[in-house]
């Protein structure tokens, strides 16, 4: 076992409070504020080696030769591995399509692709050795956009594709295409009094979680390996890792180490297989920790997109039709591109009633960095564009932009473009009403008796304005995000719940493989167990692969699905406990047989409040344990021609109002306030809910005004892989974020809850853009807005 940093069981609580609906505190909070919480990069093992990855310096090239001899000769180096050293027949991995080589074979397809790996006794030794591996490349033409990807003579990023999408795509450089056709756009266009068209560009955003990719692989005596890892989905990792190692899944044990944020960036594998390969090769524990530079190459990003929209409306503001085309750049490997296409297309018109739609979404294979999951997942890019369109339409109609949105807002029962009815509350108009009704922040807050406080002005500490050129703007946006995995995916979670007497107290233990990435799933699991089992003490077992899959910590799904699994398992445990109670004590009191029985405050009580027994007595010496899978309602794939189908299970809605101040001369923006209203169904932990909304809102702000991975269009090389040049908002860039939480239950979901994590990331960006447009009068069709866009100096 590692001598440092083993994830520990977390026990919390000693009263009977702390059930759902309360803002209970994080069970891992104390460990996190004392520095004791063991993140994946904190793992340490006696005698461990450090792994280092050599990555390609070019985006698209044939590998002519690799010479590792000098690297192997470096003292302190234990292993150097290339494609030729892979132990099994399986040499690729991938979430849906196994198109990603563990180590490059024959060619590299993007800048920073792993080519070779090294294990050495010190990270510096490993770096020096990696630098001595000689790789000779022969450049290939780079595919960087739709035109170069679909040109008749275009080089194929992947030759000989045999995945299940290749049959329906128009070109082998298209990963997946999803059209959606409903109604008759040509006829609807005839009814339109106003038509607006727009072309929008969404930049490549990075998840920029603070804890870079890292983990520790420890070889085990049975020839297997134990991986301590920060990930979003242990079992998906396992399914991809084991075949490449040539091991059965039961010989690859995985334990979740502390995760320093994820936001989609840990849904794909990063260093997992490399660490395991080196550990198995050397027989020693191997730790790999990316630095920030490598992290920018080590995970997929949010798809940059080009979006073409046509919206029509009658003179009184009713939408007649929407036609759109969404081109997502998937980069060199498929990752989650097909599912991102599904979301972008099916949610492509937003939370509005539109009967006549023509949508096409595609994801390209290019030699740009691979793109995949990031918070909002396809819905973010679409929301940016359709909300800009709604503002254009309002301007064209001379209507208030919020009024136009409310007039067309979807409701429960509205059909999506896919023909699927929204079968739970859809309070789109109400969210807009609420966010608009919030008090406005005061004007000119920067003015003080001592002159201008630059900290509250655009430019901040850089002292660029004392009020000159500063104009305020206000903008609104609303969005719709699906919750859970869609399109027929078997989206289940597993929970193991155990109840027993420990130290004279009834204690529940919840064991799932859910990746706690910061969202607070562990807090909620303990709350659910307290509510369902009436105990104060709940132990959260470390997440590992010794229990069934919990699915991914993504798609806003964990509280719904793994929370649902925990609730379900608790209910089954409760039934067993009551059964035992009836057997043991049934004869003493008739209520055991006749009344509705509950577990509360460590006791069995009737629904009338009468105490029948202490749980301690009912349980006795024998634990009760249940492990069960739990599923949400099934979904179905979208038709490949028409896009029709009941593809989604739940939706999440949020609306934002942004207030910005723009230094119109220098093109600098200060967001003054980002108010949000969101329907959460049921807030299981209100404090965490607000935290999620504020965090998601801020990521949307980032991509609105500063965040973009810049890729050179000529070489497909990343130009800003650092926190010096990839900027995320600081506390001085982030405004107050008042949140109005609405709780309209979804009767299909556990406790009526809604997945909440992603929706606030959708509408935040277009609201900020709308506010900047309002302040400047500029069309602004691209994220992020750069000072150059505001000053005409591009």
């Amino acid at each position: 076992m590692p001598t440092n940093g083993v994830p520990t069981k977390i026990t919390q609580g000693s009263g009977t409070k702390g059930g759902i609906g309360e803002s209970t505190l994080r069970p891992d909070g104390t460990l996190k504020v004392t520095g004791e919480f063991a993140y994946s990069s904190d793992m340490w093992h006696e005698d461990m080696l450090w792994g280092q990855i050599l990555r390609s310096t070019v985006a698209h090239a044939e590998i002519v030769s690799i010479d590792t001899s000098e690297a192997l000769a470096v003292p302190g180096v234990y292993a150097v591995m290339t494609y030729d050293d892979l132990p099994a027949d399986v040499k690729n991995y991938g979430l849906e399509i196994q198109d990603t080589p563990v180590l490059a074979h024959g060619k590299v397809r993007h800048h920073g692709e792993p080519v070779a790996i090294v294990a050495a006794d010190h990270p510096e030794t490993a770096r020096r050795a990696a630098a001595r591996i000689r790789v000779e490349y022969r450049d290939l033409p780079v595919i960087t956009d739709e035109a170069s990807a679909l040109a008749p003579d275009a080089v194929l990023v992947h030759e000989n594709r045999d995945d299940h999408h290749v049959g329906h795509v128009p070109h082998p450089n298209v990963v997946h295409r999803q059209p959606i056709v409903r109604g008759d756009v040509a006829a609807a266009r005839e009814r339109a009094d106003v038509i607006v068209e727009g072309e929008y560009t969404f930049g490549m955003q990075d998840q920029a979680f603070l804890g870079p990719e890292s983990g520790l692989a420890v070889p085990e005596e049975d020839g297997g390996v134990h991986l301590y890892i920060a990930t979003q989905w242990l079992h998906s990792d396992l399914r991809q890792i084991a075949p490449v190692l040539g091991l059965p899944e039961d010989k690859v044990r995985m334990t979740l180490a502390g995760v320093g944020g994820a936001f989609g960036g840990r849904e794909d594998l990063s260093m997992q297989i490399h660490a395991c390969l080196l550990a198995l090769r050397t027989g020693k524990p191997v730790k790999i920790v990316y630095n920030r530079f490598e992290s920018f190459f080590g995970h997929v990003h949010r798809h940059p997109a080009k979006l073409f929209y046509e919206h029509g409306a009658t003179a009184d503001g009713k939408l007649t039709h929407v036609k759109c085309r969404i081109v997502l750049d998937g980069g060199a490997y498929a990752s989650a591109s097909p599912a991102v296409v599904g979301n972008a297309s099916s949610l492509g018109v937003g939370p509005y009633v539109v009967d006549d739609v023509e949508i096409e979404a595609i994801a390209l294979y290019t030699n740009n960095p691979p793109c995949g999951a990031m918070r909002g997942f396809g819905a973010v890019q679409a929301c940016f564009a359709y909300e800009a369109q709604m503002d254009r339409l309002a301007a064209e109609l001379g209507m208030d932009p919020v009024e136009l949105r409310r007039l067309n807002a979807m409701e429960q029962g509205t059909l999506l473009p896919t023909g699927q009815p929204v079968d739970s509350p859809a309070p789109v108009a109400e969210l807009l009403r609420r966010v608009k009704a919030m008090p406005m922040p005061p004007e000119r807050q920067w003015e003080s008796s001592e002159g201008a406080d630059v900290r509250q002005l655009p430019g901040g500490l850089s002292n660029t304005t004392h009020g000159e050129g500063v104009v305020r703007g206000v903008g609104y946006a609303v969005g719709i995000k699906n919750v859970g995995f869609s399109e027929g995916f078997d989206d289940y979670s597993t929970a193991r719940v155990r109840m027993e007497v420990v130290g004279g107290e009834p204690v529940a233990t919840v064991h799932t493989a859910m990746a706690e990435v910061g969202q607070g799933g562990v807090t909620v699991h303990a709350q659910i167990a307290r509510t369902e089992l009436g105990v104060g003490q709940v132990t959260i077992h470390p997440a590992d692969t010794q229990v069934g899959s919990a699915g991914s910590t993504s798609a806003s799904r964990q509280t719904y699905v793994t929370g649902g699994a925990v609730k379900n398992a608790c209910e089954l445990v409760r039934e067993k406990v009551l059964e035992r109670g009836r057997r043991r004590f049934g004869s003493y009191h008739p209520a055991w047989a006749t009344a509705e029985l509950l577990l509360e405050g460590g006791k069995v009580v009737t629904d009338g409040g009468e105490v029948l027994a202490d749980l301690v007595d009912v349980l006795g010496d024998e634990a009760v344990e249940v492990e069960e899978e739990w599923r949400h309602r099934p979904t179905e794939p979208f038709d490949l021609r028409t896009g029709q189908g009941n593809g989604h299970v739940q939706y999440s809605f949020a609306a934002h109002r942004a207030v910005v101040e723009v230094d119109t001369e220098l093109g600098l923006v200060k967001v003054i306030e980002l108010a949000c209203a969101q329907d959460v169904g049921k807030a299981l932990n209100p404090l965490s809910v607000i935290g999620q909304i504020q965090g998601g809102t801020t990521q949307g702000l980032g991509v609105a005004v500063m965040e973009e991975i810049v890729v050179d269009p000529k070489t497909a090389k990343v130009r800003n892989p650092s926190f010096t040049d990839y900027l995320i908002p600081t506390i001085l860039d982030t405004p107050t974020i008042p949140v109005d939480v609405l709780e309209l239950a979804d009767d299909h979901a556990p406790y009526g809850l809604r997945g909440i994590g992603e929706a606030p990331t959708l509408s935040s960006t277009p609201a900020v853009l709308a506010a900047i447009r309002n302040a400047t009068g500029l069309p602004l069709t691209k994220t992020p807005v750069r000072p150059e866009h505001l000053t005409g100096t591009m």
Partner: protein
Amino acid sequence: MDFLRPASWEEALAAKAEHPAAVPIAGGTDVMVEINFDHRRPEYLMDLNRIGDLEEWEVGEESVRLGASVPYSKIMEHLRAELPGLALASHTVASPQIRNRGGVGGNLGTASPAGDAHPALLAAGAEVEAESVRGTRRIPIDAFYTGVKRNALAPDELIRAVHIKKADGPQQYSKVGTRNAMVIAVCAFGLALHPETRTVRTGIGSAAPTPIRAQAAEEFLNAALEEGGFWDNGKIVTPSVAKQFADLCAAACNPIDDVRGTASYRRHAVGVMARRTLTWTWESYRGAHRTTEGAA
């Protein structure tokens, strides 16, 4: 790599003479980034933190002798009156943690065109005190920057201090970045009024291969102020003069397009900052001027 820990300035000079390739490290805010990211593997790293003098400053009659390692946070706190431009520039440096470690000596040693201190030093007027076992010399700031990340130091020289003229009038400093804190300059501008000599000096950062002064703009403004009797009458600088000054500052730039900003934006922004900082400093001068007259 060897780690040298001279206990005194003399030891440091001797070590630098013996190992001219030794890289001095004080705040570490440049050097350690390069080491952490494998961009640099110097044969010798020479720690200057043991040399207490380098973190001291003396306020003289004419100028401030600022030790090379005085951290920016100390400049902000203690030298706001004497070196207002540099104090403002210091406040724009990176983050509080970096301002607690980094100093002007490091900025000069690295000589990046984006170093935040340079425009303030150019505007105030300064001399770099460079020393080697061969002796001490003072390099005028205008002659210090010799190319992109190159300076006038000889291989065996170390920066001991900077002599910066005490402010005899208002100074301002402004920097554009695409974030409201912790950001590298897209471009920066420093302006100092020198009522004693009736001159104006400027400094521009990140808009040319080296930090530069906008000399044509200074000459134009000096002449315009003199001609209009502005120094004496304390009138508002006319918008056309301010505009011409701003345009000349922008014209002094020789920027590049890079990931942080376009050349076109840099020129534009330098012009805006030039106009604004002129307005701020001149308003301040007029305010002081009126007060003095009122008292007299």
